[in-house]
């Protein structure tokens, strides 16, 4: 039962995330065991663990042109698209600690940041996000989970490439935010079930570790 008389605890936590302060504490595997990771994952984890600027430059070189192309496809002019790219890449740097490779690919994490940024800029609306599960928890890196998620993403990539042109166009429009919920079909034609189950395992791992931290 909700006690209305009792003031809710002040939940505001203002975090100014700056420079090296945003390192994520991980119980990491050795670098030789990261060889199976994609380049993007290794770069991102180096940014996360060591605030590695060279790795960040590599992420920029890979993502900036793609982000610009992606944003421009929704009709945004070149200069404004570059402003969005700049904001997205700076967010990648500042929020690096929140990236969890057991639950997300670098590309999906950046996709989500880019969509948020575009809503902020173009619609002047605040994107409502779910609760973050962790800010800067200690986690144990599980290379097999990370590699398995990457492999399932490859399967998804192949499935997307195999869609008929009309269907692919609908899927692209949906993920570019050009279709309303009533225009989106219940079935996108993409096999998302296995990837969802894999992400679920990543979530359970995280829940388990958070529980152990609380009990420690």
């Amino acid at each position, binding site marked *: 039962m*909700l006690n209305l008389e009792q*003031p*809710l605890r002040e*939940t*505001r936590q203002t*975090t*100014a*995330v*700056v*420079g090296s302060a945003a390192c994520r504490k991980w119980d990491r595997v050795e670098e030789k065991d990261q060889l199976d990771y994609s380049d993007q994952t290794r770069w991102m984890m180096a940014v996360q663990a060591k605030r590695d600027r060279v790795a*960040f430059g590599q992420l*920029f*070189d890979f*993502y*900036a*042109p*793609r982000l*610009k*192309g*992606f944003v421009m496809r929704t009709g945004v002019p070149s200069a404004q698209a*570059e402003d969005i790219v*700049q904001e997205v890449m*700076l967010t990648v740097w*500042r929020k690096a600690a929140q990236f969890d490779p057991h*639950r*997300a*690919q670098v590309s*999906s994490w950046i*996709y989500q940041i*880019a*969509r*948020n940024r575009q*809503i902020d800029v173009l619609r002047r*609306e*605040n*994107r*409502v996000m*779910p*609760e*973050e599960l962790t800010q800067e928890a200690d986690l144990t890196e599980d290379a097999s989970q990370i590699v398995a998620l990457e492999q399932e*993403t490859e399967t*998804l*990539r192949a499935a*997307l490439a195999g869609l008929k042109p009309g269907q692919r166009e609908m*899927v*692209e429009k*949906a993920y570019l935010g050009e*279709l*309303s*919920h*009533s225009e*989106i079909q*219940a*079935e*996108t034609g993409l096999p*998302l079930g296995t990837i*969802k*189950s894999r*992400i*679920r395992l990543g979530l359970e791992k995280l829940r388990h570790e958070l529980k152990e931290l609380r009990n420690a």
Partner: protein
Amino acid sequence: MTAISHHISEPLMVAYAAGNLAEPYALVVATHISMCDECRARMAAHECAGGVLLEGTGGQAVSGDLKDRVLSGLDTEVKEAPVYARSGVFPGPVMAALKGKPPQWKSLGFGVRQQILQSSGKGSVRLLYIPGGQAVPDHSHDGLELTLVLQGAFSDESGRFGVGDLEIADDDVDHAPMAEHGEVCICLAATSAPLRFNSWMPRLFQPLFRI
């Protein structure tokens, strides 16, 4: 806590992941995801598809100085927006909409109370407080209505909805939910337009209560 059995539909999930859901609905979806790991994983799967599309997008060359502009911004101190944590039965997104304060309930009569969180041309979203055994005002509405249970439970023609369950009602549904006996039922409800009450309250009063 019993398992959640009514989840976010696929079209709503894709529209939310792509950022194309009006803010009142997005608040309800984000709140459900905060309570439901199944939908959190489903959303992440859709973001994964979005990421694959992003990666496969034909690049556009960026200006020569863009990289330097970004690199020179890395050390700039930025004050991040406040993060609101769950408090009581209210998950983080609801606390953010309440700006960290407890709800300021307004009585609608018969023990029913509400707090409007947001109301604009794009729709409205509110918290509803319904005593156990009490009917939710009988109403119909234009467009989609999303109702998420935060505490207690209610039932209507389409089933029982407990904590975490999301009811998705289209514009043709004319429903009369009833809060279960016992605990007060607290819901988060979003509509595309002001609610129209059929019998429960004279329509005359609607502007007064902003229903």
